[in-house]
C-alpha cells in the first residue's frame, strides 16, 4: 500500500512537471512576451524598446532556464541598469542584492507577483480557492445523492415508465452545457421581469420587485445563503447529475441481471430488500470512479458558472488571469488544477480497492 502510493506520487510529480512546463512554454512564447511588454511598459514602445524590456525583466534566455527559475532550481535573474541600480527576480530596486536569496521559485514558496491583482500570487489565490471550495462542496452535496438516487431508481426496473422518465431527464440535463442551463435558470427563477418570480410576486408569496433567487452570487463571497447560492450550485450540479445518474443506471441494470440477484429473489426476498441489500452496494462500485472523475470536470463548470454569476472564486480568477495576460497567476492556476486532477485520481484508485475486495492493483 505504502509503496503503491509512493510510486503513484512519483508519477504524479512527473506529470505535474510536464504539464506545468507545457503551460509555461505556451504562456512564455515570444509574441505573448511582447504583448506583456507593451501592457506593462507602454503601448507606444518601439520594437527595440520591447526587446530591451523583455531582456531587462528576465524574460530572455532559454525557456528551460526560465522554467527553472520559476520552479526555484535555477538562480533568479538580476539586472543592473545604467544608473547602477540592481533589481532581480528575488528583490526590488533598493533592496540589498547580497542579502536577498539567490533562488526564489515555487520550491521557495514564491509563486510570483500577480500583475492583475498587484499583489503576490499566493496571497491572491488562497481566498479565491476557499470560495470555490465552498461552491464545490455544495455542488457535491447536491449532486452525488440526487444522481445516485435517480440512477438506482431508473436502473432497478429496466425499461419501466420510471426508468424512461428519469432517463429522459438525465440525458437532457447532461446534454445541456452550463452556459445554457445557467442562463435558462436565471431567466426562469431570478429576474423580476420574466419567469416565475413576477407570478409569485403577484400572488404575494414574495415581495414585489424581488426575485425567487439572486442572479448574482457576489454576496455569497461573504455570506452564503440559500437565496444567493442556489443558482450557481444548481447550474453546475445539473450537468453532473445527468452524467452520474446514467452511469449508476447502467451499473444498476447490469447488477439486476446478475445471477446472485436471481438467487436472492428465489430465496423469497421481497423486491425492495433485493434492491436495498443485494443490488445497491454492488451497483455503487462503478459510479464511485465516475464521481471522483467528476471533480476535475467541476473545475471546468466552475470557470463558466463563476463568471456567469460573478462569484469571485478560482474559475473567475483563471478567466481574469488569462484575459489580462497575468502569467504568474495563470501558472499558479494550472498547478492547482493539475494537483486537483491527479489527487482525485489517486483517491479514486485507492478507494476502489477498498470498495471492491476482489480488485488488486499491480
Amino acid at each position, binding site marked *: 500500500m505504502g509503496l*503503491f502510493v509512493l510510486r503513484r506520487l512519483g508519477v504524479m510529480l512527473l506529470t505535474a512537471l510536464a504539464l506545468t512546463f507545457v503551460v509555461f512554454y505556451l504562456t512564455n512564447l515570444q509574441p505573448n512576451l511582447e504583448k506583456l511588454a507593451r501592457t506593462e511598459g507602454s503601448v507606444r514602445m518601439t520594437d527595440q524598446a520591447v526587446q530591451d524590456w523583455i531582456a531587462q525583466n528576465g524574460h530572455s534566455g532559454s525557456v528551460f532556464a526560465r522554467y527553472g527559475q520559476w520552479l526555484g532550481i535555477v538562480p533568479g535573474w538580476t539586472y543592473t541598469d545604467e544608473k547602477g541600480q540592481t533589481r532581480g527576480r528575488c528583490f526590488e530596486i533598493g533592496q540589498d542584492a547580497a542579502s536577498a536569496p539567490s533562488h526564489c521559485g515555487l520550491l521557495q514558496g514564491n509563486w510570483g507577483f500577480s500583475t492583475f491583482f498587484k499583489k503576490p500570487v499566493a496571497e491572491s489565490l488562497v481566498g479565491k480557492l476557499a470560495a470555490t471550495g465552498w461552491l464545490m462542496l455544495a455542488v457535491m452535496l447536491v449532486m452525488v445523492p440526487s444522481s445516485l438516487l435517480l440512477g438506482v431508481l431508473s436502473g432497478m426496473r429496466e425499461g419501466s415508465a420510471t426508468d424512461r422518465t428519469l432517463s429522459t431527464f438525465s440525458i437532457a440535463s447532461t446534454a445541456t452545457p452550463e452556459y445554457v442551463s445557467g442562463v435558462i435558470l436565471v431567466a426562469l427563477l431570478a429576474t423580476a421581469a420574466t419567469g416565475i418570480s413576477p407570478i409569485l410576486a403577484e400572488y404575494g408569496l414574495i415581495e414585489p420587485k424581488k426575485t425567487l433567487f439572486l442572479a448574482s452570487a457576489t454576496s455569497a463571497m461573504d455570506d452564503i445563503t440559500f437565496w444567493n447560492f442556489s443558482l450557481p450550485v444548481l447550474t453546475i450540479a445539473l450537468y453532473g447529475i445527468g452524467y452520474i445518474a446514467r452511469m449508476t443506471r447502467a451499473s444498476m441494470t447490469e447488477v439486476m441481471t446478475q445471477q*446472485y440477484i436471481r438467487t436472492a429473489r428465489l430465496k423469497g*426476498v421481497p423486491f425492495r430488500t433485493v434492491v436495498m441489500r443485494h443490488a445497491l452496494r454492488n451497483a455503487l462500485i462503478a459510479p464511485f470512479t465516475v464521481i471522483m472523475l467528476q471533480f476535475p470536470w467541476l473545475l471546468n463548470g466552475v470557470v463558466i458558472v463563476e463568471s456567469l454569476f460573478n462569484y469571485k472564486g478560482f474559475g473567475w480568477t483563471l478567466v481574469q488571469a488569462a484575459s489580462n495576460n497575468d502569467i504568474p497567476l495563470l501558472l499558479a492556476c494550472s498547478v492547482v488544477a493539475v494537483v486537483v486532477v491527479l489527487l482525485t485520481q489517486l483517491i479514486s484508485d485507492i478507494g476502489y480497492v477498498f470498495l471492491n475486495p476482489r*480488485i*488488486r492493483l499491480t
Partner: protein
Amino acid sequence: MTASDTWDPSQPILEIENLSISFFTRLHEIPAVMDFSCTVMPGEAMGLVGESGCGKSTVALAVMRELGKTGRIVSGSMKFKGRDLALMNNEELRHIRGSEIAMIYQEPMASLNPAMKVGAQLAEVPMLHSGMSKADAWALARQIVADVRLPDPDRIINAYPHQLSGGQQQRIVIAMALMAKPALLILDEPTTALDVTVEAGIVDLVKELGRKYGTSMLFISHNLGLVMDVCGRICVMYSGEAVETGSVTEVFDKMRHPYTQALFRSIPLPGADKNARPLISIPGNFPLPHERPRGCNFGPRCDYFEKGRCDETDVPMAHVPGGDRHDSRCLRWSEIDWAAPPAKREVKQKARIGEVVLKMDDLRKYYSVSGGAFGGGTKKVVKANETLSFEAREGETLAIVGESGCGKSTFAKVLMGLETATSGSIMLFDENVQSTPIQKRNTDTVSQVQMVFQNPFDTLNPSMTVGRQIIRALEVFRFGASDADRRKRMLELLDLVKLPRAFAERMPRQLSGGQKQRVGIARAFAGGAKVVVADEPVSALDVSVQAAVTDLLMDIQRENKTTLLFISHDLSIVRYLSDRVMVMYLGHVVEMGTTDQVFAPPYHPYTEALLSAVPIADTRVERKRIVLEGDIPSAMNPPPGCPFQTRCHWKSRVTPAGLCDREVPPVQMLEGGHQIKCHLSREVLATMEPVIKIAAE
C-alpha cells in the same frame, strides 16, 4: 405453511401436467417446452436429462415461476403440494420460494452476492421466512455450514464468497437452499462448473442430505452418469418435450425411445473402443425452436423413422406396460427390436505408431506473482510444471489428464511457444524449441504444431467468413502459390472435416457449436500439422455432437499420422480414444502409461480417486467410492513433499511414516514402461483392487 396443513404426504410433492411454456419476442411466440408432465413423490429424486436447449432449465425455472419478462406459461398446471403454482400471486410465491422450494445453481460464484458475507446471505433465509432473530439465524447458518461438511465454519460464515474455492462456494449454495428445510430442492447442473473429484464430494453430500431430510429433488443435468448416481427416476427431454420417463434402471437398461438409445450409444462407456467399437453419433443437428419438424421432433435424426407416420401428427406419451410409471413418446416403441445391436458400426484400422516426434525432457515452467493488493508484497513462485518428461510418437494419441490447476494448459502453452520453458528441453523432430517463443519460430515449426481450442464459440473471428479464416491460416503458413491454390485447399479442408463446401461463405454465428469446432479443426490441420494439441476440444459441446467431433479427429489423425496430445478432464473419453495417458496433479506427472495400464491397478492414489469420481452411465458398472477430502491445494502454496499427500488415502501405508510430508516421491518404473510417482512400495501397489468392475451380463 398453509399448504402443508391440508396436504396429504402420500400425494405427489410436485405434479406437472401438460405444461407448455413459450417465450414471446416482438414478432414470434417461441415454444420452449411443450406438453411436459412429470410427478415427483415425497423423498424421490427425479433426474431431468437432455442436451442444451432442450428446455430442462426452463422447466426448473418455471417451477420457481422465474421465467423473466418474456417467458409465459401457456397452458397446463404445476401443482406443488396440491396448490397450482401457476395461479399464485407474488406474495404467495414469495412465501414458497426459499422456504418450501429451494434451488441450487450451476455457477456458485455468480450465484452468491460478492459484497455480502456468506453468513449474512445464509441467515437471511430463516429471518425472512420464519421471523428468526439475527443471532439465532447466524447460529443456524453456522450449524448448516458445518452440516454441509465445510471445515472451520466460524471462519467461513464471516468470509466473502471470493475467498472460498469453487467447491466450497457450491456447498454454501447448498447450505443456503437447506436453511429453511425445503420440501423440494431443484438442482440445476450443480456440479458442471466443478472438477470431478470435487463433484464426487458434492454428489455424496446431496444424496446424504436427501436421505437425512427426506427432501424431494429435481435434478437437472446433461450427464447421464451423474443422474444414475443421484436419482431414482429420470425424465429424458428432447427439443422441448419429455420423450421418455421412468425409473433409472428401466430407462437405462430397457429404454423405449430411439433418442434415449442414440444418446447411450454416443457416450463413451467402458468397453467402447475407437477402433473396434466406435461411438455412434446422432446424425444431423438439434432443431431450433422455430424449426421443429412436423410430428415427432426426433424424426429427422431417427434410425426408425417411418415416413407418413412419424411426421404426420403430434406424438403423445404412451405408457410402457410392465414398468414403473414408464412412458415413451414414440409411435413405434412396441415395434422396434430394442435388443438388436446397432447396424452401422464400422470397424476401423488401428493406426500404426511410428517414430518419436516430440520429446520433452525435465521440463519446468515457473511463474512469479506478487502478493499484496497494491502490488509489491512478497513475490511468490507458482510451479506450473515440474520435471515433465515424456515422448510422443507419430500417429499416437497421448492424453493428458488432470483437474483445473494441474498445469496441463501451461504445458500446452509452452509447447506451442506462447510461453517459454523455465528449464528443460522440448525436441520437436530434431529441433530444440523450448526457448523459442512463437514469434521467433519459423513458419514450418508453427504449422507443424497446432492447437484445437476448448471453446469453439470464442476462437473464431466473428466478423470473418469461415472460408476466409481458413485461407488466412494458409497464408500465414505460406501454403500454395496463388489465392486460387489456397482456395482449393480450403475447400478440401472443409471436405476433410465433413462440412458442406457452401459453409465457406458463412459467418461463424450461423454455425452450431459442433460445426464451429470442425472449422477450428480444419484451421489446425491447414498447414499439415504433425503435432496437434487438442485442449478439451469437446467439453463445450453436447453429448451427441461430442461423439461426431471426436471421431472426426480420430479419422484425420489416422489419415495424416498426426500425433495428438489430447488434454482432457473427462476420463471416459480419454479411455475411449487415447493410446497412452499421462495423469497430472499440481504440475507433477503422477502416473503415465498405456491406457490399459493407467485404467487398471496398480494405480497412483490420485488416479484411483479420479477414476472412482467419474460417474458412469451404466447400471452394470460397480464403482468403488473414494471421495477426496478438501480441495486441490493452490499452486502458489503447494504442500511440502508429495503434492498429493494432503488428500491421499494411502498415506498411512507408506513406510517410513512421514516420508510423504518430506520428500517428493521418485518415479517408479513398473512393467511395460508404466510410471508411478509414489512412495508406496511395490507390494502395497500390487494389493490395489480395480475401481471399476463390470458385472457379468
